[in-house]
Structure formats: C-alpha cells, structure tokens
C-alpha cells in the first residue's frame, strides 16, 4: 500500500481542477499587483457603476472596484478555507486517531460528540460562534473548524480501525513502538489518501460556508474583500446593478467547481480498483 499513486492527468476534471487551483493560488499571491485599484478605495460618486473603461467589472457599494475585490477575494477565500481545512484537519485527525487507537470510553465519548455536532445545524453553530467571538477572519476560521473536524475524525478513526490490525502495525508494536509513534509513523501515512480527498472537498465547502455567514452578516469584517461578502452585497442590488453579484459569483463557482473535480479525480486515483487499463 503506497499512499501516493500516480495521478491521472488525462482526466478532464483533473486538468480543469488543477488549472483552477493554480490560477486561484496565483491570484491570491499576486492580487495586490494584479489589481487596478486599492481594495479600500472608496468613491461615492461612482457607486454601482456599470462595467466600463475605468472599472473593467464595474463598481459596487461605496464605489469599490469589483475587479479589485474579486482578485483580493481570492486571497481572503484562500486564507479562510486553507486555515479552516488545516485546523479542522489537525483537530479531526488527532481526535479521530486517538479515538480509533484508544477505543473504549474515549472512542465512545468522542464519537458521541461528533454525533451531536453533526446533528446540530452547522450554520447555527457558526452564527453563535461569530456572535460570541465577534467578526474577524480568525473567528470565521474557528467557526468553520468547530464542526469541520468531525468529518476528518470519522474518516481517520475508520482508517485507523482497519489498519491497526495489519501486520506491519502489529510488527511495529511488537518492536516496542509507543502508540503515538505508531499513529504518526505507520497509521496516518496510510490514511493520507482519503484524508487528502476529504480536504479537497472541504476546501470549497469552507468557501461556500464563509459566503453563507456573510449573508447572515456574520462573516468577515466589513470592507474585507471576500467573495461571499461581495455576492451578498450584490444580491441586494440585483435589480439595479447585477454585475456586483455576478463576477464574484463566477469566481466563487469556478473555484468550487475546480476543487470538486480535482477531488473526484484524486479519489479515482487513490482507489486501487480505479487504476486505468
């Protein structure tokens, strides 16, 4: 069982997904140099202007440049989704690993906690958390991770449960490796594949969740160029300035689409039975 399998680039979805991911990261890194305006530049006299020479994608509320916000939005969505996925991944893998390896009461307790969190409306949790902690990029990450870790925990636990009876794990144990070492050296690397797939799907999930929080007014702080916030703002002006919601919406949709296709391709590649002819 080797965790890394040859990634099939000939799949359409994979190619598209990779291209999107690359473009996304590139835009996020270089947004300040690509943008024609400053993200906080306010121009009340040109509020909700249609796309034109001065503002290629038009302007939004307070006359902010939509193109600039879409480009900077890549950066914000990258930060939020990356850290949300990272935090929930670390939390979930650790707790899931512990649950799977320790078993017994620890396992039972952790899994019931997962049940509670899964049954609790996720958006409500996020709403409460941002209400309590106040709106900031960091708190949005916390809010998303609060439930986000459960998926990883279940997955890791399942993987650990099936893997821990395998010969090489038994051998390591016989050779005197401690549980922590066995988890990190033997169990997790072999569970990495499915976890990576999970992360690929979680990334766009976090982007959409952040957008929903913005709709309820509890997303990123005002003025932060996030796609979700921009779509929310534009929805209000659908009848007078449809472009405000359209362009960030496209950026959001394409990114989510790309990562989902990438996830599908990765999953196919990870599955031993899905090896090509």
């Amino acid at each position, binding site marked *: 069982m080797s965790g890394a399998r040859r990634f099939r680039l000939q799949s359409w979805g994979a190619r598209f997904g990779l291209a999107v991911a690359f473009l996304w990261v590139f835009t996020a890194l270089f947004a300040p140099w690509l943008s024609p305006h400053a993200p906080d530049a306010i121009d009340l006299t040109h509020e909700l202007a249609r796309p034109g020479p001065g503002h290629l994608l038009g302007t939004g509320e307070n006359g902010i440049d939509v193109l600039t916000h879409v480009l900077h939005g890549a950066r914000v969505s990258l930060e939020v989704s990356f850290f949300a996925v990272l935090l929930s991944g670390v939390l979930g893998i650790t707790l899931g690993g512990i649950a799977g390896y320790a078993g017994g009461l620890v396992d039972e307790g952790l899994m019931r906690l997962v*049940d509670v969190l899964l049954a609790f409306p996720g958006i409500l949790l996020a709403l409460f958390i941002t209400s309590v902690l106040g709106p900031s990029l960091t708190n949005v990450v916390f809010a998303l991770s609060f439930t986000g870790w459960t998926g990883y925990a279940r997955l890791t636990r399942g993987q650990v449960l099936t893997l821990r009876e395998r010969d090489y794990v038994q051998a390591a144990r016989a050779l005197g490796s401690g549980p922590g070492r066995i988890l990190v050296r033997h169990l997790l690397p072999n569970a990495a594949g499915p976890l990576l797939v999970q992360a690929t799907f979680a990334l766009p999930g976090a982007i959409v969740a952040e957008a929903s929080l913005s709709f309820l007014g509890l997303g990123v702080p005002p003025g932060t160029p996030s796609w979700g916030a921009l779509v929310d703002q534009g*929805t209000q002006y659908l009848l007078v300035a449809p472009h405000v919601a359209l362009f960030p919406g496209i950026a959001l949709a394409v990114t989510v689409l790309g990562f989902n296709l990438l996830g599908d391709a990765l999953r196919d590649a990870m599955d031993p*039975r899905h090896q090509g002819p």
Partner: protein
Amino acid sequence: MSAAIALVGALLLVSLFLYLVPGDPVDVMLGEQATQVDRAALRRAVGLDMPWYAQLWTFTRDLATGELRTSLPPFQRKVLPALGAALPYTLLLTVAAMAVSLVLALPLGVMAAARRGTPVDAAAMGVSVAGVALPRFWLGPVLIILFALKLDWLPVSGAESWRHLVLPAFTLGTALAAFLARMTRATMLEALREDYVTVARAKGLSPRVVLWKHAFRNALLPLVTVLGLEFGALLGGAIVTEKVFAWPGMGTLLLTAIEKRDYNTVRATVLLFTFCYVMVNTLTDAAYAWVDPRVRRRS
C-alpha cells in the same frame, strides 16, 4: 441511546451558547426606543433571574408537559403550537428539495459514471457542482427574478400554494444535487466493476439493462445512507432559503427567536432540528437494513 445523547448534547450546547452570547430577551426587546422601564420585573417574569441549571430544568420540565412558553414577556405564548405550525413547512421544503436533488442528481451521476473520463463526465459533474457553488442567498433572488418577475410563472415568496414551493425547493435542492450526483457517480463506478456486472455483461445483456437493472440498483444502497446524513445539511440550508422566500418554517422561527433572544424557542427549535436529524438517520438505517438483506442478516 445515541439519539438521546445527541439530544441532550444539543440542548447543553445550545444553552451554553445562549449563556455566552451577550444580550438577553428583555434587553433586545426594549431596544433603543423605550424609556425607563421595569427591567427587573420583566426579567423575573421570564425566569432570567434563575441560575442556568434551574432555567434548563424549567425548560425541560415545561417542554415535557407541553407548557413551554416563550421567553418574551408579558404574554408568553406557548412554544409548541408555533413549532407545530412551522415543522410541516420545513419538512415539506426539505422533502421537496430532496426530490428535486434526486431528479437532478441520479441521471447526471449515472451518465457520468457510464462515460467515465470523457468530456460528458466532466460536463455532467460540472453542471451538478454548479449547484453547490452558487450561494443560496444569490440563487434564490435570481430564480425569483427569472421565474416570478420576467416569466411571471411562479409567485415570489410565501407559502400559500404548491406553486410557492417550487422555487425554494429548487434553491435548496441544487446544493444537495451536486453532492448526490458525485456520490451516484462514485457508487456507480464501484458497482460497474463488481463481478456480477461482468457476469451480466458476459451473459450478453444489453448495456442499458446492465447499467440500470444491475449496477444502479446496487449503487442505490449507499445513496440511501448518504441521503440520511445529508438531511442535516438540508435542514441547515433551509434556514437561509426560508429567509429569502419568507417561508414560515423552523428556520424563520429560529432566526426570529435568536434576534429576540427568545431562549426557550431557540432551545426548542434546535432540539427539534436535532430530533429530525436523528429520526431521519434512524429511519435510513432501518431502510438500509430492509433494502439490503446482508445488513439484515448481520445484525
């Protein structure tokens, strides 16, 4: 047992949050407008002067006896009738959304699996994923503008007839459709590789029969479980959808209750959400066992 744990856990969790969130019903109700008022009396009237465990106990007792009333003075309406009125609307919406998502997802998923790796696959997946990528709070108004204003086919919002259900169900269902389509594709791919499919092919059955009769039936099983698990997400999504379409369901009830800090209604609604989720999953497990004899035999 685990259902009971989930319910108790949800109650504790929501109470903890209500305890942490600043503001209480009296403050929020009085707002910016009122002049000096008898706050202490109002607080006593709704039991806010009691310690948290006592409030929790009163809540549980009142809920059990059906005497639960809102935390909003002076005339505290009973909570259960309001919940009872909202529940069918939310169930109707989620079930309709689920139907919409199945209708959209199954053909797309099967098609993508049958032509794996081709542009058809990518396109089918692309179309379905578009659903998850479009935020509901945007999709809702766009659908209203298109179908209610421009085409004048459907009403804008409210819940007076079946026609009012179409747009919210579609708005809510698309995101699940994306997920279901991918699941269908994955389970179909798995099923298509099973020995019995190979055997069926070898027997010379037409590809269509093999696809639908053999592979699809077996692919349905895991889908049932997924549907149950996704029901929670659907309920959560209903909160946003209900706000957009002024749909008088539990999400609307919950958002209003949070705004007003109507603790009792918030707790009761969250419990009902959790209960629905747990019930649906219990039912799915049962359905799964019923549909799949191997599971039945094992348990």
